[in-house]
């Protein structure tokens, strides 16, 4: 049988170049690992169920349940709400990064990654980038559904694209908070619970549903310092028109700041959890 032939043969060792040390290692390795996440997501498309249904459910609840009461016209409310809902659903979608990482880190395959000559941060960056598909799916579903029920962009496609990219960039930043939780916490359930606890005041404590001036003073103060409110404001400005420069600048600064704090913390925690 094959046993005998294998025992006699030696393992293939054709001395192909082992790959001369090439540049941009972190970027290439992270992309290879992001490709791995993508394959996993596409192999089990039901993983995308949440990002597909969530935007639809949120729009239905807010527009038809509350829209009439809040703004008198469901259509006007849809215009006001949809850009902010986009930010919220993409942020909710980013939670999955930390949750799946938490399951992954325990598995042997992460040991393999750790024993390879690649940067320690590459598997983490790979997980974050690999979730891009979730963000894109949720945005596409949201706009398709919004258009079906009467939403129209008030600016131009380029500005709208900019709003989507800004939202995705911010979600990547927030993913790093999820990654930190995913590396530090003991179970996927704990990661999910904690992440929602963090995200609820951040997404709902905004002017997503109602104008800021209708809020009590302490809540106005919170909306004023809440970075998610800035991103929603920026998305609204870029998609339906309104102030853009201020909110976009603040959103970008927050994005950079969150990555600068949480990415190193996550990588350090991952290093320690050997």
């Amino acid at each position, binding site marked *: 049988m094959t*046993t005998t032939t294998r025992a006699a*043969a030696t393992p*293939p*060792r054709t001395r192909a170049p082992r790959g001369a040390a090439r540049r941009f290692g972190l970027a290439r390795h992270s992309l290879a690992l992001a490709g791995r996440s993508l394959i*996993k997501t596409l*192999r089990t498309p039901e993983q995308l169920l949440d990002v597909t249904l969530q935007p639809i459910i949120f729009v239905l609840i807010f527009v038809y349940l509350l829209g009439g009461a809040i703004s008198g016209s469901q259509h006007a409310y849809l215009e006001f709400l949809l850009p902010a809902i986009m930010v919220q659903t993409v942020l909710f979608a980013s939670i999955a990064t930390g949750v799946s990482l938490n399951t992954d880190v325990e598995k*042997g395959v992460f*040991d393999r990654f750790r*024993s390879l*000559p690649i940067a320690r941060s590459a598997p983490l960056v790979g997980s974050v980038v690999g979730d891009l598909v979730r963000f894109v799916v949720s945005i596409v579903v949201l706009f398709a559904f919004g258009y079906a029920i009467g939403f129209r962009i008030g600016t131009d496609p380029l500005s709208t694209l900019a709003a989507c990219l800004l939202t995705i960039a911010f979600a990547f930043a927030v993913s790093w908070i999820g990654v930190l939780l995913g590396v530090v916490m003991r179970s996927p359930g704990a990661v999910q619970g904690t992440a929602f606890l963090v995200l609820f005041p951040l997404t709902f404590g905004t002017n997503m549903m109602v104008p800021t001036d209708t809020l009590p003073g302490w809540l106005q103060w919170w909306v004023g310092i809440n970075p998610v409110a800035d991103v929603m404001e920026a998305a609204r400005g870029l998609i339906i028109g309104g102030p853009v420069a201020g909110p976009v600048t603040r959103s970008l600064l927050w994005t950079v700041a969150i990555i600068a704090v949480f990415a190193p913390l996550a990588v350090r925690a991952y290093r320690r959890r050997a």
Partner: protein
Amino acid sequence: MVGAMTYAFEAEGLVKRFGTTTALAGIDLAARRGTVLGVLGPNGAGKTTAVRILATLLRPDAGRATVGGHDVVADAAEVRRLIGLTGQYASVDEDLTGTQNLVLIGRLLDLSRRDARARAAELLAWFDLTEAAGRPAKTYSGGMRRRLDLAASLVGRPEVIYLDEPTTGLDPAKREEMWGVVRSLVDDGSTVLLTTQYLDEADALADEISVIDHGRVIAHGTPGELKRIAGSQTIVVRPTEPDRIGEVAEILRASTGAEPELPRPGLLTVPVEGDAPFTAVVRRLDDAGIGVVELALRLPSLDEVFFTLTGHGADEPTEVAA
């Protein structure tokens, strides 16, 4: 230093604690280039912890280890270029196909896309996995998963290969197959660290064996030396007809000059030196027309080695090391 030239890896006085548990209490391990070091010990003896330190996955609390002359802590990146690791549990991605698993590793090792594909195909063929190459690894049998895992650790043509209990849970045929793989790796010039709970496996593959218990090396030597420490081999006979046990005992006594024991009803054992008496026993049983259900020349078991070395059995559980 002589060591750097002759040893593929070398560990001195490794200590590792997890909370109040001491997994390694100062162990030394070393293997010359192109040889197999067997690390033999029961569950929780510290085998996996030692491998993880040598594979740069854990930092030792004390002591030092080098691979190819590079320190596993200070020079971890260099060490990772030299090693391949196969864990106790198969560390492949279950959602990826065989090919995707190996191509990913190749890409992470900076092979070009084409080289990575070629290397994956080559390894899959060698491990008889070509037909399953396009299926997700979760559909593989236990033996196939082990082979894929081992293939993944060989993508980068490592000089030093760690095999952490590569045959635990495999059936005897798959075990033999894995042994063949290990032998060909060594023929090809690799150095192998093999951990195992089975004396016969260490005996079959290792050039030298370190026996460890409670995080310490309690014996080191060639398989022959260890077997001498552990004492003789044993002949085991179980006759088909239990009432002829007296005749069997007489034959054993005559052939070996030692007094047989009756550890269980219907089963006789007698210690022997060398295998010459065994042939005599077989011939005499045949001459006397005594049929047997069991007739074997047994190596001392790990249990017996442990009992000789430590005064306690190998199956007394020690704390599980991470």
